[in-house]
């Protein structure tokens, strides 16, 4: 009986196996779309690529011994004597893409960034587009919000014009430690990390997104 039942169900089993195989094949082609590095798959399906790389030499800052009143050359106030940090990247995909940046701020137990006007202030720009000013970024609707300490802000749109291959983006990070910085900040340390990312613009309308604000109408992947 077990054997018969097996024989009776063997077409079912084989059909299911075929289903799994087909599904696996289908999923395999789907997962290849997640990566800009699988050039073989892209050629097979003649799709475009979305990839990013480094641009000109960047200045990764390790700013030590900051004192109240110190600021970088591009901040606009303060001493202007410190070095501006830069992060130069390039869009290297051949498919047009939307570009965005994430900003993350982390601090040691003694922090220099307090998420208010009494701590380290930043001016983060991508070209002329402001991504962060002081301690604030701009939300989808245009209202200002604070970048919290030990937190991150995602998907700040760099431009409403899709990027093309070899487009260069220059991020600048200027900073100021205000004269009002409290004594408790002595010896404090904080870090700002930028993440630059791209997503295909095809079949993704920009909607009402504005450069320099968070953009949530686009699926960033």
């Amino acid at each position, binding site marked *: 009986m077990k054997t018969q039942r097996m024989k009776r169900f063997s077409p079912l089993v084989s059909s299911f196996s075929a289903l799994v195989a087909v599904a696996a094949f289908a999923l395999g082609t789907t997962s290849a779309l997640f990566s800009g590095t699988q050039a073989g798959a892209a050629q097979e399906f003649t799709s*475009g690529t979305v990839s990013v790389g480094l641009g000109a030499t960047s200045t990764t800052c390790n700013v030590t011994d900051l004192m109240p009143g110190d600021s970088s050359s591009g901040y606009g106030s303060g001493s202007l004597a410190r070095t501006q940090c830069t992060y130069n990247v390039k869009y290297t995909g051949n498919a047009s893409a939307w570009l965005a940046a994430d900003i993350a701020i982390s601090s040691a137990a003694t922090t220099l960034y307090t998420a208010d006007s009494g701590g380290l202030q930043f001016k983060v720009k991508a070209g002329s587009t402001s991504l962060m000013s002081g301690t604030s970024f701009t939300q989808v609707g245009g209202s200002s919000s604070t970048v919290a300490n030990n937190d991150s802000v995602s998907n700040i749109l760099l431009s409403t014009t899709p990027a093309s291959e070899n487009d260069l983006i220059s991020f600048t990070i200027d900073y100021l430690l205000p004269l009002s910085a409290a004594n408790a900040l002595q010896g404090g340390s904080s870090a700002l990390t930028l993440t630059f990312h791209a997503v295909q613009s095809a079949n993704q309308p920009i909607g009402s997104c504005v450069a320099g604000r968070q953009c949530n109408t686009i699926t960033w992947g």
Partner: protein
Amino acid sequence: MVNSRRVVIAVWVVALFWTVAVPGLMLTASALFTAATGANPQQFSGVTFIPSVAPVPVTQLVDSGVHIEWAGVNLSNGSPAQYEVVRTGSDSSVHTVCTGASAPVRQIVTDSCIDTGVQADVTYTYSEKPLVQQNGSVTWSRPASNSSVPLLAPKLRFGGLGVVTTSTAPGVVAVKYPLTATTGDVAILIVRRSRKSPLTAPSGWTPLVELASNGPQSFLLIAWKVIATETSVNVDLQGTPQGSAAWIASYKRTAGNTSTPITATATVRVENAPASSTFTQTAAITTNTNNAAVISIASVLATNSLSLQTPNNYSLRSSTTATSGGNGFAIGIADQIAVKNAVTVQPATWSQSGIPALWQVATIAFS
């Protein structure tokens, strides 16, 4: 069999759905081409003070006021910290001192300044607070140090010693006051001659010590007065070929001391002693007012250098030599402040270099 075929067909329909429809849905939902890259973190750190705890100042009376010194504090960028130095008085006064041209200065590993604003008879403590300034405003600072050991501002403090005047012939000579002496200071005349016949204090001067010695012959005169407007005094040194030498030391009145100086001991201690490399007076001196300046004056008939072997809280203010009539003369001046009335001040031990000569030593006090 029919059922089996239906099942197989159903499975293929599902398979077709998975093959065609689902990937399409996934493409529109999340299977987008994306890429990302992150920069290295941009690091920012604030300056620190080294050491983080403000060192306690050490104070010392100097001619011009109170010298305040403490271990220097640096910033982590290597530059020296600035300071706020605060003086707290027993009269409840609190003042920020060592500002402007008197700001603390760095000397290798210590910072120091001089407070010239002390008032006589007030006891002071000092604290310092390391800080940084931007555009003249204090930004960051450390908590102020603990207070220094209390220090009493004296009524009188050593002002200086004038140039020596020598004589080998009879007659009056002018002995000059120190250049720093001013009206109201206490002038102390010290004359040492190599004969035993007595000298007389000039008019207007109060003799304190008239000490003769027979072997070898010697005479020590010490007299004092409050300086008016004069800059020298005529003294008959009764010069002989054996020579004599005279000096005037001055003690300045500290601000706030409006009283006329007086002697502050009932008994002046005066002793001759045979030649020896060191000498300690056999008796202590007892003051009769608060905050008295107790002064020990030693002299020898030789050009030996005088110093304090055992200071016993005395500070050496001056040590000098002269030659007259072929004889050598040396004097040394040391002092200390006796804070309270009726304090017994133990003598210092004086020392002389070279071949030992006869000692003549006196201890006096003023207030």
